[in-house]
């Protein structure tokens, strides 16, 4: 198998694993469809926007949980925003964590919120490292003169 074919196979397997592990969902596929010659870096750009936004939100939530009394409505509003943006880029596990997080906000469970904050932080970090790897594998294929195979 030549080098390009190996790179493509590695990329396809890696990308599939992100979907099978629910790190990404179908909405990410929809984002890929919006990328074209006029917006070649669209997905990278949107991912970057997401991580900037997520960091701000996570910091807001962390601050809110340190204050007494805890404003669960404010935390819920932040989680709602994170849920919206994560679902829009197809960040499946981040979104699912936000769903659980909102339930703890509703029941005003401090411990539950704290656990979810840690979980959402972990999921965002994981997502970032996975996407960084995905984009790097993509770039390797393009540099080798190949093209990115579409998702089946």
């Amino acid at each position, binding site marked *: 198998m030549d080098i390009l074919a190996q790179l493509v196979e590695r990329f396809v397997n890696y990308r599939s694993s992100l979907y099978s592990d629910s790190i990404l969902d179908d*909405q990410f596929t*929809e*984002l890929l*469809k*919006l990328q*074209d010659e*006029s*917006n070649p870096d*669209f997905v990278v*750009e*949107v991912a970057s*926007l*997401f991580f*900037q*936004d997520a960091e701000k939100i996570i910091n807001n939530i962390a601050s809110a949980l340190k204050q007494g009394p805890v404003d669960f409505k404010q935390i819920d509003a932040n989680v*709602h*925003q994170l*849920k*919206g*943006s994560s*679902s*829009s*880029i*197809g960040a499946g596990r981040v979104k699912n964590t936000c769903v659980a997080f909102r339930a703890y906000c509703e029941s005003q469970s401090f411990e539950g919120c704290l656990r979810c904050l840690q979980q959402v932080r972990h999921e965002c970090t994981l997502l970032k490292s996975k996407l960084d790897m995905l984009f790097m594998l993509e770039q390797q294929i393009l540099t080798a003169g190949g093209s990115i195979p579409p998702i089946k």
Partner: protein
Amino acid sequence: MNEFGERTSSHCNNEECKITCNKRVSLLQQSMRSNSCVTKKSLDGLRILLAEDTPVLQRVASIMLEKLGARVLAVGDGLQAVKALNCEVDSEGTESGQHSSNEKRISLAKMQFQSFYLVPMDSQILKMDGYRATKIIRKSEDGTGMHIPIVALTAHGMSSDEAKCMEVGMNAYLTKPIDYELMVSTIMSLTRRKDSMDEE
């Protein structure tokens, strides 16, 4: 009236009528999805004011619309959306009672409303939520003959949210994450109707 010349629930005088009108909009949106004919420049020439405060969603929605030929102005809160349409608000973000002369107000409104064909609006946007912004926009249209289509972008998708959207005068709603084809077919349907009403 909605974009189909049908009575909207904002004009309904009882719950049964509201439920019927809302069901009609839901069915219509379902049929629009199945009859979708999205082409590359389906929204060519449309000027769209997008009111969405989440940067990621703003970017994704803008690209979705621009890919289909629309020109998008994105604003980050409901107050900016209301001001972009030249609705008069006081410093507290409520509709001002101090209007300029009626004639001047009408011509200003017509000029500004004609700048945009449609407004997709996050229902829970900051500073002034989509429901309140829509009420102000609709009030500003009084006496002008104008009616800018407003589409709610809501995270919830519950029937109570749907009812609330129609109650304040929104024309349709989309739930997040946005379904690309449904968004386009919704917009095409609303702007087609607006064009034919403007011609009358």
